[in-house]
């Protein structure tokens, strides 16, 4: 299969538009945002006067942004822990190859196919103190009228995290399931012959081999949680009392409602750096593994 010059040309031609598009619309605009974040552009008329890191300094001193950073950290922790736990449990159950496995696998994967906006709307109904969960609890005789769910600053974060976990646990499950399928039956069989119970097989044979899957899942999931916007915007708009406010929501309001483009760009760049801090080590690590 020797490639002719003509075919090479063709493959280049076919790839060129998407390569150009990626350079312009991804890297170009990252660069543009970084540049805007160094200016004092405020209001609709662009201003390109460089003011250095002023926007970043004022951002770090802004109480709302400080709260957003804490919220992002808390949300990411809950979201990661929940996803890894439920993903692993569901995968372990489905890996037993019991009856109905296919049905349940699809069922657990299904939420991923729904947009965050759609599922967020449904979760708002569920967590609305006047309907949803409270109504269900009342059916069972609980005095649940006082539970505020997403309207309670102390509970709201757990509510949105729960919705996000519901949505993404199927994805984590699929990752783990693929990882478990990669553990050869010979090894499991060998362990069983040596007298290991099923729990021991899982703990000592399967789990250790899932480490790369876990790292991959953490990277994918945390970049979702670091830039979460749509789900929270639909569910709480960052409220009550900043309890679920995230940098993404602050950026949206600052940029598209407040017209403070320089600060909006600075928030975006901070979010990019946070994601990069996580993903770059992973890329380096996986490259080394490949080499």
């Amino acid at each position, binding site marked *: 299969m020797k490639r002719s010059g*003509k*075919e090479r040309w*063709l493959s280049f*031609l*076919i790839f060129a538009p998407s390569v150009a598009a990626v350079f312009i619309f991804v890297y170009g605009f990252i660069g543009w945002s970084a540049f805007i974040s160094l200016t004092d552009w*405020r*209001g*609709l*008329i662009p201003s390109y006067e460089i003011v250095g890191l002023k926007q970043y300094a*004022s951002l770090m001193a*802004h*109480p*709302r942004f400080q709260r957003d950073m804490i919220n992002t950290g808390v949300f990411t922790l809950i979201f990661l822990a929940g996803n890894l736990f439920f993903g692993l449990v569901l995968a372990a159950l489905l890996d037993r190859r019991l009856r109905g496995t296919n049905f349940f696998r699809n069922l657990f994967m299904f939420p991923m196919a729904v947009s965050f906006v759609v599922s967020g709307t449904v979760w708002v109904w569920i967590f*609305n*103190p*006047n309907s949803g969960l409270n109504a269900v609890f009342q059916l069972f005789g609980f005095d649940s009228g*006082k539970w*505020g769910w*997403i*309207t*309670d*600053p102390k509970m709201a974060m757990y509510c949105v995290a729960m919705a996000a976990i519901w949505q993404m646990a199927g994805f984590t499950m699929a990752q783990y399931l693929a990882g478990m399928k990669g553990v050869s039956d010979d090894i499991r069989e060998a362990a069983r012959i040596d007298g290991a119970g099923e729990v021991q097989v899982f703990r000592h044979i399967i789990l250790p081999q899932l480490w790369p899957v876990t790292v991959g899942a953490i990277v994918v999931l945390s970049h979702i949680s670091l830039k979460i916007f749509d789900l929270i915007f639909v569910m709480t*708009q*960052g*409220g*009550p*009392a*900043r*309890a679920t*406010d995230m940098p993404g929501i602050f950026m949206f*309001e*600052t940029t*598209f*409602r*407040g*017209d*403070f483009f320089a600060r909006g760009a600075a928030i975006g760049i901070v979010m990019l750096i946070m994601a990069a801090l996580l993903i770059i080590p992973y890329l380096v690590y996986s490259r080394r593994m490949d080499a």
Partner: protein
Amino acid sequence: MSTKPLIALIALMIALTPLLSCQTDRKPDHEMDKAADTEAPPPSALKTADGELTIFSWWTAGGEADGLAEHIRLFQEKSGGVSVVNAAVAGGAGTNAKAVLKTRMLGGDPPGTFQVHGGSELIDTWVKSGMMAALDSLYDEKGWRGKFPDALIDMVSWQGRIYAVPSNIHWGNALWCNKAVFEKNGLTPPETMEQFFAVCEKLQKAGVTPLALASRNKWPVLHLFENLLAASGGRDFYMDLFAGKAAWDDDRVKKALENFKKILEYVNADHAALTWDQACGLVGQGKAAMTVMGDWARGYFVTQSLKPGEDFDAVATPGTKGLFFVITDTFGMPENAPNKVATKLYLSIVGSVEGQLAFNLKKGSIPARTDVPTDAFDPIAKKTMEYFASANLLPSAAHGSAVIEDFVVSLNDQLSVFLSEKDVDKCAGAFAFAANDAGLKKD
């Protein structure tokens, strides 16, 4: 040869590229501009290839959409068949639409005309950035000077030139009362803060939620708070605050926050889950006795089969008698509007007595002109029209008329924190921080 179809496809795409880019090239507007300079356009002049008018708004449902349809109907009668593109974007209080509009305007694709609140939203966002055309000649031509209240024209003017035509007025500082609940408890609608709290106390004891509040979207909270600000500080102080001439940690701001804190003892516990219409619903059903909302609430009550003046009534928010918070929807002409003749014709309908009457009867607001016959309006609207003609007008911050949107975003954010922390001094301090951050000028 499997590559042949691919090559053919690419060749086709390359061949199509000029065609595609042609489409975005607009026809030169010279002819239209010349026509715009002459007076009333003959209908035939509009029947050109560019005979299209895009009207941008956030009126997508209910009385608002019906009102817009009336404008469009009148326009089509007079324009001789210019097609109208109704580019409405849904979303409460226009927050989504405003973002879309900014994208269109900055991207060089302005609509023919767009809905914008008079005041800061129009002036600071669009006029100062040089994107709007002045409409003084239209006002002269149509004889509109003196037909609108001066304070209203001030809200759509900059450096002595007028930039928009107000289509309607909404009354912001209205306290809506369920009359049956008030009668049952032997109460009358309160006029002062003291009376208000006394009424609240009695209602609370009678087992009725005194005041319905909705804070799921943030603006209704600011809507209530700006009423309280005007009540504690008066009109001049209110204007000074937003002009950056008064301090945001002033005692009068703290007084308003104290009142707000006290009010929070009398509101529904689930306010964070409700939107403004649901809060009005509580009042309509008699579960709550009062709510503070703009007079678009009247339209909502009417759709719930309640009769204005009989089942429900409105008075000025306690402490704001003689003041009228104006929320005015206006229409202007972008400097680069694609079809200025059509835009001007549309604006002349928006500002006409006929247009104001047809639109406002459907929307449930009152006309911006003070010479529109009142006969067809309901009792509360008539009362509002009288009040509008005599009261001192104030721009609303919650609806983008009083101050730049960046500061509104901060106010909304601080108030949502205040709702749960109820810390007056901290909140006033945060306001002062935000005012400084937003660069409100102190002269």
